């Protein structure tokens, strides 16, 4: 981009010494006081558009929190040791996780077959003494970003059903996001905290989904899922 | 007055002579104001300095006199001075030329005088 810009600049520089640029930039196309009127008209149109753009924007914009570089870095750091944390059964202590939805199913019998129809999520199963008749299922996920915008909320939780002794985890609905992103020109962002961010954000980063299942300690498990204890 | 730039005479001389003729013909009488250099310049489309030079010739010959801040006026003796001057200069040189031409054409003195007398009669008859 910058090379193209410079090339353009050089071409225009060369042209600027010919009669051509004097015609374009000194404009002999329009002379006389007509120019002033045309320019005033142009300015009014711009002003109208500018005011309109300020009035419209609020409701139309994409919902999502804007994260700073620091927040993203912090989240990345947290997410890097999320596995060991969860594996060691300390999910409550894990940071950087969003608890999205939880289910509770009454259990009949001592058998539970966990069946994943969704390859995306990681399943962890913890046997808990305090539980007797219920299965608690919780969907956690790490943050998802798109260009520094937190879109974690955009991802729905999977549908989870207990069918007899089979816990079925269905895939979530397919999510499609079509976005248009507008950024101000560089002089407007230079003094902002994001000023140093020259690249166009971080692209897309989809968070990890964890399905955390707590079952009574005496249950007999089969099927998918990593059993912590 | 029409200036003749092809003439032998410089413009200021032409102006002076024209003013003399006006004074002789009493278009401008004695103690009357003559044209200023600026009026002359504008009338004749010439530089005011040239016009001033013409006026100054006449002032030097006492035909005109200056009144401070008012301009130039025709003096009382103007007509007399002009007449004397013209007799002494203009007429004299015209006569000299006449005589020279007569010599060329082998016209005798008597014949010449006769021609002059005839011309004079004609002039009188006309007027």
């Amino acid at each position: 981009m910058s090379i193209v810009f410079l090339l353009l600049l050089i071409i225009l520089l060369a042209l600027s010494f010919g009669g051509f640029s004097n015609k374009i930039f000194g404009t002999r196309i329009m002379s006389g006081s007509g120019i002033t009127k045309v320019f005033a008209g142009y300015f009014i149109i711009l002003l109208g558009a500018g005011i309109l753009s300020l009035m419209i924007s609020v409701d139309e914009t994409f919902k999502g929190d804007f994260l700073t570089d620091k927040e993203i870095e912090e989240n990345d750091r947290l997410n890097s040791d999320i596995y060991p944390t969860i594996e060691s059964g300390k999910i409550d202590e894990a940071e950087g996780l969003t608890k999205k939805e939880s289910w509770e199913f009454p259990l009949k019998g001592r058998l539970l077959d966990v069946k994943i129809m969704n390859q995306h999520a990681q399943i962890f199963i913890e046997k808990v003494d305090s539980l007797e008749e219920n299965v608690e299922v919780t969907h956690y996920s790490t943050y998802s970003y798109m260009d520094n915008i937190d879109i974690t909320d955009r991802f729905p939780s999977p549908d989870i059903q207990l069918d007899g002794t089979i816990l079925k985890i269905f895939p979530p609905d397919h999510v499609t996001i079509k976005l248009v992103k507008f950024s101000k020109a560089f002089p407007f962002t230079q003094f902002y905290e994001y000023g140093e961010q020259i690249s166009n954000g971080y692209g897309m980063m989809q968070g990890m989904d964890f399905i955390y299942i707590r079952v009574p300690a005496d249950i007999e498990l089969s099927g998918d899922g990593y059993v912590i204890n | 007055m029409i200036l003749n730039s092809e003439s032998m005479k410089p413009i200021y001389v032409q102006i002076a002579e024209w003013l003399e003729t006006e004074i002789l013909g009493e278009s401008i009488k004695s103690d009357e104001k003559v044209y200023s250099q600026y009026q002359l310049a504008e009338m004749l489309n010439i530089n005011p300095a040239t016009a001033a030079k013409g006026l100054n010739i006449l002032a030097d010959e006492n035909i005109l006199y200056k009144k401070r801040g008012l301009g130039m006026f025709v003096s009382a003796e103007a007509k007399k001075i002009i007449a004397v001057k013209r007799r002494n200069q203009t007429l004299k040189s015209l006569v000299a030329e006449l005589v020279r031409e007569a010599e060329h054409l082998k016209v005798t003195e008597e014949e010449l005088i006769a021609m002059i007398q005839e011309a004079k009669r004609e002039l009188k008859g006309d007027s």
Partner: protein
Amino acid sequence: MSVLEFDSVTKAYGRKKALDNLSFSLGENKITGLIGRNGAGKTTMLKIAAGFMKETSGDVRAFGEHPFNNLMVSANMIMIDNDMNMPTALDLEEIMASAADFYHNWDMDLAKKLFDYFSLNPRQTHTGLSKGMKNTFNAILGLASRCPLTIFDEPTNGMDAGVRKDFYRALLKDYIAYPRTIIISSHHLSEVEDILEDILLLKDGQQFLHMPVEELREYAVVVSGKEEAINSWLRGHEVFHKSDQAFGRSYAVIRNDLTDDQIGVAMKSGLEFSTISNEDLCLYLTSQEKGGIDDVFNKG
């Protein structure tokens, strides 16, 4: 006080000297005609006087100050020439409005009246004008600005005869009403000489003559007659020009420093005296010593 003073001014372009040790001084409120052949240094001199160019050596003073890059001189001087640049974006009316803003003495009433008289179009641009119209417009700028030093360099180029006459008349009338120092350079001395007070004749970048124009008229005299008679009589006189004519007659332009006796002697030997127009005289005075155009054909 002299409005414009050149003291041994030289302007060199490389080895060629456009002005060579030029000295003169113009008095206040005079109309001076600047006369000279092409390449005599007229335009160079005027541009140095106007402060557009810097002299190579010598001293130039306009209103007592050095004109180059001088704001005071610029504000009190206008130079009208053929390659005057005007912004392409402005129409003539706006150019006049700008001039009014810049020049303290500007007379918009006069400008407008002249503008209408010469049938110029206020919406027209300067570049769109024909050469004659452009010079007419420039001349209006020069007159209406009423600068204490007003310079016209070949102002009537491209104007038709009627417009030239009107312009010089307008110049004279405005000068009489508002005297100021005016320099006019022209190829056609005959059309301006009546309104001039002084004449400055340049030759090869040097001052050749600087005198009142009425004196120039008496500066030289033409003598003509039989070739032998002329040739013998001319000895001891300053001859500006001599040419042979048909029937063994000769024609010479000489310095008019003759006594009545000398004239008498000459007339006796069949020589005739006549005057010469200033324009012709200037041509002879400034001609290169290469003989006349006839010699080109004679030798060929």
